[in-house]
């Protein structure tokens, strides 16, 4: 799939909307803890990426290569759900309001979707 100029523009547009929603959910209510969602979603693809470089999944002789990849996936799954669970936790304990919680979840989802779509579009060219 070729990534044209339109893809880049629309992706950056979505990323900006995501950041707007998260920052708005913080600044409207003067409680800046939902910014942690951004940090979580930026960190989320990192374990997968690091462990993917460490191991060769096509290696059948040494089966420990797969375990490292699985560990990276486990950590990524942990972090992705953390981005949803953190605002819900804060809202449930009356630290932030429920509308701030919904806004930061939607914003975080947009940011993470942008990161995933970006890596899907641009990694296939480096494969071979």
């Amino acid at each position, binding site marked *: 799939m070729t990534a044209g100029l339109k893809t880049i523009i629309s992706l950056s547009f979505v990323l900006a909307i995501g950041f707007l929603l998260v920052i708005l959910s913080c600044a409207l209510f003067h409680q800046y803890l939902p910014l942690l969602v951004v940090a979580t979603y930026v960190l989320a693809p990192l374990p997968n990426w690091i462990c993917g470089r460490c191991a060769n999944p096509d290696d059948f002789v040494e089966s420990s290569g797969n375990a490292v990849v699985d560990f990276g*996936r486990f950590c990524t799954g942990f972090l992705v759900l953390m981005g949803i669970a*953190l605002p819900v936790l804060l809202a*449930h304990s009356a630290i932030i309001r429920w509308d701030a919680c919904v806004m930061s979840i939607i914003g975080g989802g947009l940011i993470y979707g942008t990161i995933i779509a970006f890596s899907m579009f641009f990694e296939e060219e480096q494969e071979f």
Partner: protein
Amino acid sequence: MAEERLWKFRKPEWMNSATARSAGVYGAGALFSLAFFTLLDAAVWSHSSRNGSDIHIAFIDWLPLIFSSLGMLIINSIEKTRLAADSFSYSGSGVAWKARVVLFLGFASLAGGMAGGVTVLVLKYVVPGAPWPTIYMGISNVVGNGLVMLSSVVLWISQNMEDEYSYNLAL
């Protein structure tokens, strides 16, 4: 492979794909995260303004989750292929036996975490007769430990898929 089948029902074909396997591992991570945040939510809630009672989350409430996570770590660190005693080369030095002992410790730790969660719920919340919003802290303890159990089951199943998948690919 078909000759060694033990069960009447065949595993569905889609379970052997690499996509289902990685989805299982992601799902296990998500379930473990849900378990951790269920308990963390109870801890934060207990010290927030919403909690009107005298009962608070202490280290005792975290202990079952620590044991469950330890059990999950042990269970999923074991090399699954060493478990089969009739696998020719490994049965000699007693590796299968050792693996089973360690696996037993892991399962005991996991079940102990679950039992500890129920114990905390009963002794700390049910016996003193705590009302609904307070008893949520005890219920979340049981739910969190159950989610750790579910997560380790999902991880176990998706790691067992791996052998079938690599076997199919190697042929």
